[in-house]
């Protein structure tokens, strides 16, 4: 198929950016969206132009590196990561808009590449269980009810891609933060730091410039791992509980 791409080009964080149109031809339905961009980049390199910069790594939907806004939707029309979106979901002659994640807390590095290090700082503020190497009791010392383990797992699946922030009209990181709080707070191992964790993480989230949640729910719709909006409810409850003395 032949497509028109309108791609956000921006040479650096403080540079002006804009959409540039490109024609790509001979695109196969079997290609992933990123393979389609690879094809464009090969042509751009041979022409001596700057290829389109975008983050990507595992290309199997688990590392969380890739992510772009495709036709206004984070990761495009399917509920998956950009690397697992295939061109069969588009039609010959389509015009596709491709933009970076848009959020004040995710400044553009170049083209479609953004700086998501704010996420790392939120985790560093409390998204862990303090368990220095060597200090652990036997793994069976504390049984964990299966329901708690499953709930923890379902929230630990977050890949930190940032689609939730990109999809949110407020640029909120509540779903990301909530996923980690639920993962750790439902486990007995996470109980001792439960209150401090949620307080620190919410403070870090606010300090990074992410917006607040207004229950729009776009985050959960965009999440490629299916983390549900309930997590934010739990986060709020944990926060209120954590604030009590």
């Amino acid at each position, binding site marked *: 198929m032949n497509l028109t791409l309108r791609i956000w080009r921006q040479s650096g964080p403080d540079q002006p950016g804009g959409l540039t149109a490109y024609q790509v031809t001979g695109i196969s339905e079997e290609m992933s969206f990123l393979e389609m961009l690879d094809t464009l980049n*090969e042509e751009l*390199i041979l022409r001596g132009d700057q290829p389109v910069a975008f983050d990507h790594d595992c290309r199997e939907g688990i590392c969380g590196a890739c992510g772009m806004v495709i036709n206004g939707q984070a990761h495009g029309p399917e509920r998956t990561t950009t690397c697992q979106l295939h061109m069969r979901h588009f039609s010959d002659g389509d015009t596709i808009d491709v933009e970076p994640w848009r959020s004040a807390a995710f400044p553009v590095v170049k083209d479609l590449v953004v700086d998501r290090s704010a996420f790392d700082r939120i985790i560093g503020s409390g998204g862990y269980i303090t368990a220095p190497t060597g200090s652990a009791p036997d793994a069976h010392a504390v*049984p964990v009810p299966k329901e708690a383990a499953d709930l923890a797992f379902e929230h630990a699946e977050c890949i930190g891609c940032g689609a939730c922030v990109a999809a949110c009209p407020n640029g909120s990181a509540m779903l990301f933060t909530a996923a980690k709080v639920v993962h750790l707070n439902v486990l007995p191992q996470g109980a001792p730091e439960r209150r401090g964790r949620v307080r620190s993480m919410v403070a870090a989230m606010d300090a990074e410039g992410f917006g607040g949640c207004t229950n729009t729910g776009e985050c959960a719709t965009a999440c490629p791992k299916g983390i549900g909006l309930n997590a934010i409810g739990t986060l709020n409850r944990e926060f209120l509980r954590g604030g009590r003395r």
Partner: protein
Amino acid sequence: MTHHPQDEYVNDERAQDEYAPTAFAQYQEGDPIADTKAPAGPIEGRWDQRRFEARLVNPANRRGRTVIVVGTGLAGGAAGATLAEQGYRVVQFCFQDSPRRAHSIAAQGGINAAKNYRNDGDSIRRLFYDTVKGGDFRARESNVHRLAQVSVEIIDQCVAQGVPFAREYGGLLDTRSFGGVQVSRTFYARGQTGQQLLLGAYQALSRQIAAGNVEMHARTEMLDLLVVDGRARGIVARDLVTGQVRTHLADAVVLATGGYGNVFHLSTNAKNSNATAIWRAHRRGALFANPCFTQIHPTCIPRSGDHQAKLTLMSESLRNDGRIWVPRRPGDTRPPAQISAAERDYYLERMYPSFGNLVPRDIASRAAKVVCDEGRGVGPGGQGVYLDFADAIERLGREAVAARYGNLFEMYQRITAEDPYQVPMRIYPAIHYTMGGLWVDYDLQTTVPGLFAIGEANFSDHGANRLGASALMQGLADGYFVLPATLADYLARTPGAPVAADHPQIAELEAEVADRLNLLLAVDGDRTPESFHRELGELLWNECGMARSEAGLRRALERIPQLRAEFWRRIKVPGVGEEFNQTLEKANRLVDYFELAELMCLDALHRTESCGGHFRVESQTADGEAARDDEAFAYVAAWEFAGPGRPPVLHREQLAFEHVHPTQRSYA
């Protein structure tokens, strides 16, 4: 005197004349490796003994000692967090935008540990035995035994961190059996065990970053190693955002940069995984061990065309219920439903009646190649075989099949748009792990003092073949438990004399790295890095992939230097060095792939036996099984870089099997 078949390539005038244009088609004999630093005595007590003999660094002095850790996967993340907890100053690097994205995250299956929670006869001794045997008797016993010992502590550590392993209704950990072993020792978190273990290590590391104990440099790639007075004292790294190249100094350097599977271009590795850190360390004096030991996974989704960027692995548990077949007649392109049972060849069931579709990874992979080479492959390009669930669905019902494999079927359908409930899956083998890597002693130290290699970056524990669910175990064993003990010993014995920031070697090394990058930018040719990578990868896959022959390896050794020469004439890299430039990153990684590819082929050529993942067509039993030659090849081939264009030097580490007696595998 015993005749070693590999001798003919050494100092042979005919070989020299014929293959003179290729630097690596010959090699020189070096001194054998006499001491691996493993303590003597009963194998069960060696690790305890080593830890007791290791010197300690006074807690008050640790803050003054800086350790560089390159990579943030299971090994690097675990090591960085643990060293920082112990009080050392850690400076850590990853090329990804966050330490949470290292490729350990993609591991699906699970992690082995000799917990014996099932009371099914497992023990440290049995895990040790299985690993040595599974490695086809090319691993070092002392290291493997330690790995099995440490495995039990890993699970404790990860549970304490909040890793959400699968559990049973009683609240205890669930396990499954994996990779053909007879005990149930694999702990897992659905099909995302690597992700969960990595996030555990990442969170521990994040805590140390926030506490100021780890100075984290994301989006920064190591491009060279600084060796001063014979010791590793730092690295030269490029900030991938600004393009700035600068030196970071330390008292010791730890490489946790993963494997080199991407030399094949198409592999299950992440796109940016690369060999530059280990190869540059090799060029600075670290021996490279068993480069030809690469592992191929039989159940990957086949390539769909030339645009293919990478291959996706599907858990090999699929072979428990799927039946593998191809059409009997070459060139039969009818849809599978129109091919009757009589016209199908269930070749694994035919060739290996007792194991059928469950033969080990290497055998299943080679058999797929053979039928595809006969023109009987299916799908685009004929590079695929069917994995058919029709019988399983009829026998068990669709629901039962969905319960077992639903998520895998979904993944397959997402990528191929074919419904595996209706039409057979197509699968093909792909490279996914490299057992070879930097040679390390028992302390995980390379032959450059102060340079350590952990995880997949070293060669140590898997011999010629890695067992399923053992990569995660080794990465975390090295990072959490082994390295922190042995590194302390090194630091305690080495004076903490700083390297002056204006040391002449620093400017020299930075200039050398800058020259290489500038040269790549200056060629301004007419071929992209991707096109060269694809060509090198195809060559290597054909000649040094699933089956290797003398003729094929010699062809590759002739072709690679030509391709490299063409690369330096025709490569095109737009832009400049002082900016975010992904084309430059890729081109620079390719420079090292060319040399590494040659060493892999040379290693494969010299090892005229078959063992594990290394299959020489000249060395097979009557039923097509790999034929080992323990007399000639029960050694680790550790290669020394002798300078550009000079034949590498082979150092042999003879392997002694005192506890596990070598036997020949048979699956017929």
